[in-house]
């Protein structure tokens, strides 16, 4: 299997600020890739480009071999990309089950409801199918958003800070379910500031700094990379490595 996502020299500027600066990388099918980097290093902008929410100023994105730059986010979903957000963006005026049915509006088939219920049960939310999403806790909203992203059977799920601000046990549940789906072949790109969680989960880590990809490899290699340490500390490795 080839890569699900290939990014070549992505550039995105906001006014005079270059948020993503010639970032190139690829995500193999079934990969579990963690993305780290200091605040403002371009991680979220990169995710936004990878699912079509933002158009890059230049560069090429291929999803499952198809060139996608300039296409709307709905085309990215059809090509097999789905995502979650930094702050959960569940739709609060509809129930958990109804939230699950939003992504499959344009999809053919009829047993979406059954599939949605299976996925809710997958993260222990089966008793909350008829609960308005506004009444779910923050952790439950994160879980709902996670399984909602799986409704379209994506080949890659982009997750922005799935572990931020949730209870350790929810974090653990999320981690296990990500691993489970990953074993079944779904690729994940996970942006997180929780580096220990991420390095434990992902066999591959990509580090961004000032919009560039500064390191890409196994966790131990990346976290000890001088460029990564510099990105986080603002200077070279003078003493202890940060991790």
């Amino acid at each position, binding site marked *: 299997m080839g890569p699900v996502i290939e990014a070549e020299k992505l550039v995105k500027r906001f006014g005079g600020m270059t948020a993503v600066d010639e970032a190139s990388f690829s995500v193999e099918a079934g990969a579990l890739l963690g993305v780290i980097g200091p605040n403002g290093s371009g991680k979220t902008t990169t995710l936004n480009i990878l699912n079509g929410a933002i158009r890059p100023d230049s560069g090429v994105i291929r999803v499952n071999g198809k060139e996608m730059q300039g296409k709307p986010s709905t085309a990215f979903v059809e090509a097999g990309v*789905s995502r979650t957000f930094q702050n959960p963006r569940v*739709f609060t*005026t509809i129930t958990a089950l109804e939230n699950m049915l*939003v*992504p499959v509006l344009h999809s053919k088939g009829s047993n979406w409801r059954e599939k949605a219920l299976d996925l809710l049960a997958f993260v222990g939310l089966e*008793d909350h199918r008829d609960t308005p999403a506004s009444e779910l806790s923050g952790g439950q909203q994160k879980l709902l958003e996670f399984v909602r992203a799986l409704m379209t059977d994506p080949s890659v799920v982009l997750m922005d800070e799935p572990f931020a601000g949730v209870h350790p046990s929810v974090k*653990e549940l999320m981690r*296990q379910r990500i691993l489970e789906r990953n074993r079944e072949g779904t690729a994940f790109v996970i942006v997180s500031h929780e580096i220990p969680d991420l390095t434990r989960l992902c066999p591959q880590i990509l580090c961004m700094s000032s919009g560039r990809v500064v390191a890409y490899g196994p966790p131990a290699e990346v976290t000890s990379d001088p460029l990564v340490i510099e990105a986080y500390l603002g200077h070279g490795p003078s003493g202890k490595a940060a991790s």
Partner: protein
Amino acid sequence: MSAEIEPTATETPVEDIALAGARATYRGKKLPPWVMPVIAVVILGGLGVLGLVTEMGMLTTLTSVLYYMVIAQGWNLLGGYGGYLNFGAAIFAGSGAYAAAWFANELGWTMWQTFLPAALAAVAVSLVLGYATLRLRSHYFAIFTIVFTFLAMVVVKNTPALGGSMGLYAFLDTQLDSRGLALLFYYSLFGFAVLATVIAYLVDHSNFGYALRAISEDEPAAQVLGVKTVSVKLWALVIGAALGGAAGSVYAFQTGYIEPAGTFSLDLALDIVLVCVVGGLATWVGPLIGAVIVVVLEQWLRVFVPRLEFFGVGVPAETNRLVLGILLIVFALFIRRGIVGLFTERRGRRITV
């Protein structure tokens, strides 16, 4: 890396730990599922029976109730569920009315035959409006619909084929006496009201309806999840326009004479918004309740206000619009989810600190 949690090696499924305490099934202020359908059946059933037994004055009022009901159910799809508050309801009802009058005059068609062309004319106008504006976010869309209402009026005023500023007559060639005729209009609108309510119910319970609510709350998120938001909004507008257009054709024959200023009037557009706000936006029963309250109140005020005197001075008849305006403000500030909302669970974000 100190405060790391080791994977649990116990037999307890991890979701039981994660969701302990949160597992209790949600118990909100929730009505049994049959309550809303029963209310709808009572209102529509009541109107169905009242048409046969009531006297002519009341029949005219109830005809207006049904007219508003059909248009409001249509408007509610994009305006309520989709969150695209707009003031364009008169455009579609007006297009339907003009199409009906034109076909009656030029081709001698009877009312039944004009239903479809009236609906299609409204759909055509809604497609123009939709393609031009539905890429705009809600406030800009709302403003544009006001402009478009005036534009429609100006275009019709300057089109001789549509009677220009003189307007058009729409006669019904029939043997029916005045009551028979009134009942014909009444039950035509009644049929459309039932149809509109069935459509609203189906939308409310479909993935299309969930997507509309998603758009209303967070359109960019809906888009990123794969919802083709422009096409969903356009469909909601088009379905609503078709209902408005069909109702407009009955209106044309009922009044017998239509002219641009009265047909493309912002009063109607505002009343439709008021009907949905009072009844409950984004609910399929709301427009039914709202139409009864708003129209009956409006008709009562129209009769009652001119009789009022303050210190021997009469009150201007337009005061009834003032009362409806105050009603809109009261609902917008204090009863935001309308009358249906008073009895159903609170949903959506709360502002918290």
